[in-house]
């Protein structure tokens, strides 16, 4: 098992290399540059050219790429042009709201998605099934920004239950952090729950048709035990895969959600950095997100072993 994990971690390197290179070209080949953003709309062409020269952005692309490789290999993600601090520090300053948001949304997604999927499978082809799947369809179809704005209108403006936007750091107030994340977490979690619900339903249906379920029932087990102990555990493997995928989706969805709810997270950092052409930050976050995505997948693969002892990695 340890050998397997180490091999997977080594395999991470080429992935990161590809992400880094693609990321480098994507942002550098996008027209626009940090100098003109920094100097503002009324600056003259000459001023912008001077600043670009000062920043070293007028050097050949290949030289810039090689320099960047050199730094990245030493674990240095560079220095943010606009934030005036190391990229890694900028990311870590923003990580708390994003991690909290992701965890809370995942909780929402799982708490809605798995029970809805189970109920839909057990009551197959009844109105319950149709209702649950209808809600799930609604969840995937609705754009997160639209959903977010409506939740703000209902729960913040009319009912006054949650703050409109912004984030209270954990070390200031645990309850405050929680309250500021309820609406965004629901916005994100709801759409992810749809995917989980559908996957849970179909894998439950498959499992419920198996012989060992009939055996369990014929032994006189109560239906609750049959469904939650025997069926659900075996139906969890495909569901878990989807949960892992959803986690990646949540990171991407966080970009929109963090912008709507004005959360100072990594997603928001990416958006503003792309707008400002803050090259080092965009590249740094890309590497960071790619590695966390790969790590989550690795974690899911490891979890399989605990769910299904028949799975072995050599």
């Amino acid at each position, binding site marked *: 098992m340890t050998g397997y994990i180490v091999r997977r971690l080594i395999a991470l390197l080429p992935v990161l290399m590809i992400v880094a290179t693609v990321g480098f070209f994507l942002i550098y080949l*996008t*027209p*626009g*540059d940090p100098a*003109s*953003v*920094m*100097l*503002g*709309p*009324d*600056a*003259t*062409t*000459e*001023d*912008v*050219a001077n600043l670009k020269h*000062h920043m070293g952005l007028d050097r050949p692309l290949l030289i810039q790429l090689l320099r960047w490789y050199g730094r990245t290999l030493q674990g240095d993600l560079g220095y943010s042009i*606009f*934030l*005036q601090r190391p990229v890694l520090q*900028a990311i870590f*300053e*923003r990580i708390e709201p994003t991690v909290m948001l992701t965890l809370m949304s995942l909780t929402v997604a799982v708490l809605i998605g798995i029970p809805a999927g189970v109920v839909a499978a057990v009551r197959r082809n009844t109105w319950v099934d149709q209702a649950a799947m209808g809600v799930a369809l609604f969840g995937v179809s609705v754009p997160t*920004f639209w959903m977010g*704005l409506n939740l*703000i*209108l209902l729960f*913040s*403006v009319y009912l*006054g239950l949650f*703050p*409109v*936007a*912004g*984030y209270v750091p954990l070390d200031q107030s645990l309850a405050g952090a929680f309250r500021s994340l309820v609406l965004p977490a629901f916005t994100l979690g709801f759409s992810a729950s749809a995917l989980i619900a559908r996957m849970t339903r179909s894998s439950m249906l498959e499992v419920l048709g198996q012989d060992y379920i009939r055996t369990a029932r014929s032994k006189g087990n109560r239906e609750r035990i049959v469904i939650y102990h025997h069926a659900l555990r075996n139906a969890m493997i495909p569901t878990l895969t989807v949960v892992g995928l959803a986690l990646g989706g949540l990171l991407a969805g966080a970009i929109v959600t963090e*912008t*709507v*709810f*004005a959360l*100072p*997270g990594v997603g*928001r*950092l990416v958006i*503003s950095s792309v*707008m*400002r*052409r803050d090259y080092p930050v965009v590249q740094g976050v890309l590497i960071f997100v790619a590695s966390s995505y790969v790590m989550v997948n690795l974690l899911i693969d490891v979890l399989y072993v605990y769910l299904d002892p028949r799975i072995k990695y050599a």
Partner: protein
Amino acid sequence: MRFLPGRAIALAVILALVLLPMIPSAAQQPRRGGALRIAHIGEPPTLDQHWTTAAITGHIMYHVNEGLFAVNKKFEPKPVLVDKWTLAPDRLTYTFTLRRGVKFHNGKEMTSEDVKASLERWGRIATRGRSLFANVVSVTNPDPLTVVMKLREPYALLALDLGWVGQSAVIFPKEVIDEAGTGMVKRFISTGPYRFVEHLPDRHIRLDRFEGYAARTEEPDGATGRKHAYFDSIYIIPVPDAAVRIAGVKRGEYHFAETIPPDEYDRLRTDPDLVPYITETASWLTAVFNNRSPLMGNRKIRQAFQAVLDQEAVMRAAYGNPRFWRIDPGLMPKEHYLWTDAGKEFVNQKNTERARQLLAEAGYKGEPIRWVTTMEYVAYGTAAQVVKPMLERAGFVVDLQVVDWATLVARRARPELWDVFSTAFSFVADPVLLLSLQPTWPGWYDNRDMNAMMTLMRRHSDPKVRHELWKRMQKLWYEDAGTIKFGDYFVLHLFRKELKGYVNIPTHVWWNSWLETR
């Protein structure tokens, strides 16, 4: 009638009862304390006011930084850090006597050394500063309270340039400037009524009252006169989504929201807790021509573009409610002393026939006009989309390129890449500062007569002479179709009723404003 003292007294009492409520009550008295929370559209690109022309940096740092001058309600420069100033009879030597006892936020007293260092840095890196300093022979400081500036040629707008809000010539301590070297300043210290406390990107910028502030004694007027910091703190919070900014003000989480879509005006007006605020200074929506491109460098093609426009349709599509826009020929807004309608016959012509004829005379053969616009500022993109079919009816072929703002700014710097681009010009206090008349600014409008008149405009301070001159300049600009002015527009901001004393001339002024307890 006999005089009845009893009746007189009774009358006096009644009068007093009627008139008393008309005298401002205690509730109108400014109240010290509280934290002002402002929802702003985003993050400033930098907080160094010498560096950037971005309005958002000025909005924030204008409360922290001060310059030698600032402008009043009528956009006249008035002294801020300067006590007295004189201009020698040769009109070349300015002597500024600084105010005594002005403290920086670090407790140090401001001297002429700081002023000299700040002005020189501003003259090195700011766009406006560079053009002013091209005409500066020397800046010297014979004693701690005196700064002498010698010019090469007389220049009428020196104080205005030094006091203008955009990329302002604010004063930093000399050590802050030395520390910055060729880069940006690392500490944000000046002499303003609020001091900079922290900047947590995407979370907030916090300013606190500066207890050591040395206020002037004149009545407040625009950005000049007495400044009181009533709030303990000001938080500037980036909230990118306009709908969320509105919701936050409604809910009471923010007191003030920057830039609200004008469409919301009628709905917000009915809410008794809210004040929708329409700015008084007009900006203008524009399409800038590339005078260096083969197509738009052709005067007749530019004139054809101008002839075809239905400007009301453009402004209605871009800004909706007519409260927020007007069609006006003046390149200087109606409120300005130099306003003129010279060249008004070229405005809003809706003359497709004339355009066709001009295009034929120009020898236009259907080469695509590359128009770079953006939806990041919705009005720019909307205007371009409305104008496109108007142009096509006259025979233009339009290649509309919708890109993000950073791309647009990068592309406009390269004359080979574009023919027209969308932008807006914010209010400036003098024609000398109009970007569309600068041969160095993208668009490169360069007319010998215009440049000669501009030189005169820079030298002369007599309002009558300037007005005559300006009429001719504006007329020439229209004849030339140098750039298109679609119309004036006004910006909508929103605040809660308990915010009192807010003014917006020429930008947000939150000093002298306070929060009334409810």
